[in-house]
């Protein structure tokens, strides 16, 4: 039990150092960049779609947990909500829900690029503070 706690603390410390040095938002975009690489590395269309879906779901789940934890500062709630809405829209588009046509199989690589580029250029989504971003990254590391 002690060893597990110690390991957890180490992971958290490492994640905090890494995320802080990347500005927090950078870690989120790096996460989706890795997703994009994985998507492009496989030729299996089912697998491509699955990687995208899992990646979006994991990030949404991390965001949900952080929001529920009451550790998110009040001024970050709107930003966190906007980020979650954006992620939900991407999930809907991938699966063809809520008025979206599903992303075509031959467009999955481009869609993975879109995920990365949209987050990178729209720093408006990442208006939440570093504290919240660090929490998201930490939870993400722990649930993966």
């Amino acid at each position: 039990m002690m060893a597990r706690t110690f390991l957890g603390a180490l992971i958290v410390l490492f994640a905090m150092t890494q995320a802080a040095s990347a500005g927090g938002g950078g870690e989120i975009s790096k996460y989706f960049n890795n997703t994009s690489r994985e998507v492009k590395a496989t030729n299996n269309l089912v697998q491509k779609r699955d990687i995208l879906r899992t990646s979006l779901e994991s990030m949404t789940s991390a965001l949900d947990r952080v929001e529920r934890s009451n550790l998110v500062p009040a001024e970050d709630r709107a930003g966190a909500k906007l980020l979650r809405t954006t992620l939900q829209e991407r999930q809907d588009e991938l699966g063809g829900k809520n008025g979206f046509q599903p992303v075509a199989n031959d467009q999955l690589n481009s869609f993975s690029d879109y995920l990365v580029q949209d987050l990178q250029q729209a720093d408006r989504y990442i208006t939440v503070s570093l504290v919240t971003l660090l929490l998201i990254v930490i939870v993400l590391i722990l649930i993966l």
Partner: protein
Amino acid sequence: MQQQRKKYLAGSAQRLSGGFLLIVCAGFALFFSACGSMTLHFDEEAKAAKPASPTRFSFVFIIHGDGDYIYHDSQGQAHRADARTLHAARLVAQRRTDAEVFIFHQRPSAKLLYVIPLPDGDFLHYRNGVLQARRPYWRSSGTARFEAETALYAEYRTATDAKRTKFFLYFGHEIPEFDGKGYDASTPERAFNVRDLSAGVKSFTGDSTRFDMLVLSTCYGGTPHTIAALAPYSRTIVASPGNLHLSYFDLRAFGRLHLLSERNSVQGFARYFARQAFERLSKKVQTAVTVAVYESDRARIYLGEADSRYTQRLASLKDHGPAAVEYVDCAEEKKFVLPGMSDGVSVLFRPSRFGRAKNKFRHSGWQCCRPLAQ
């Protein structure tokens, strides 16, 4: 045994203090060498090799790098947008043997050994393709945000009566239209907003004429407020009304400045520059690409009323956080559809490949903010 241990500990302490002293000395050496580079670095060899050409063009580049500027290309490779832009600006400076180029790279502030503050800006001055000076500098923390840059510009520029075509280029994240605290990640209390940019551009023009072309390589540069604030100081403005990917506007068009005389106007060259930037961005990114050219004097008719309405809108949004505000094409808001809206504006637009806006096929060239729809 104990004596041996004491001896060993004393030796270690000595080595440690020696090591510490070495680090401190190295630190000071580094610091003073940084200060030392305040003296000019002349590239005599390169100077001798290149024949002097008449200086017909002048460029001022401001590259903001004090924030998260990392982006990934479609191969997944990470790049620093400010470092890449600095490289591209230096290429322009080296290749344009008929230009005088001033490059200001605004870096995050840092401290040597957590104590001694280091310069947070880098200045490069080229004339006729040759590096004349390179020196670190401290950015201003006062209200005149480009004070240090303007002082360096005044100190190094070649005084001439000859007519030069003057370019001003700014690269960075979206510039806030009010407040602006947090724009510099390393010094969040230092504010920077559109008014600061406008005052900065004005200080570069001095009491002389306007810039011929101003390139605003940021997200949401084409709002009525931003263009109205910059229009008095530049004849032509190239900006992106929407989101702009961090790979920014391409600078290679500056290799073809002869088009200025062929097309007989700065506006003609600005449209060529915008087309090149648009095509390269469209190939690279899946998100929407919008590049607009504003002819300052012709756009004034629309800006007169639109800016006043837009300023009221901004005032009403001051209490909204950035996450509670969204940007839309001004043409989607009746309030901003006014006479002269398309006068003096050329727009290149390609919708996002995905997302809800992928079926939008036209853009007015003006972007307006509004409270986020709930």
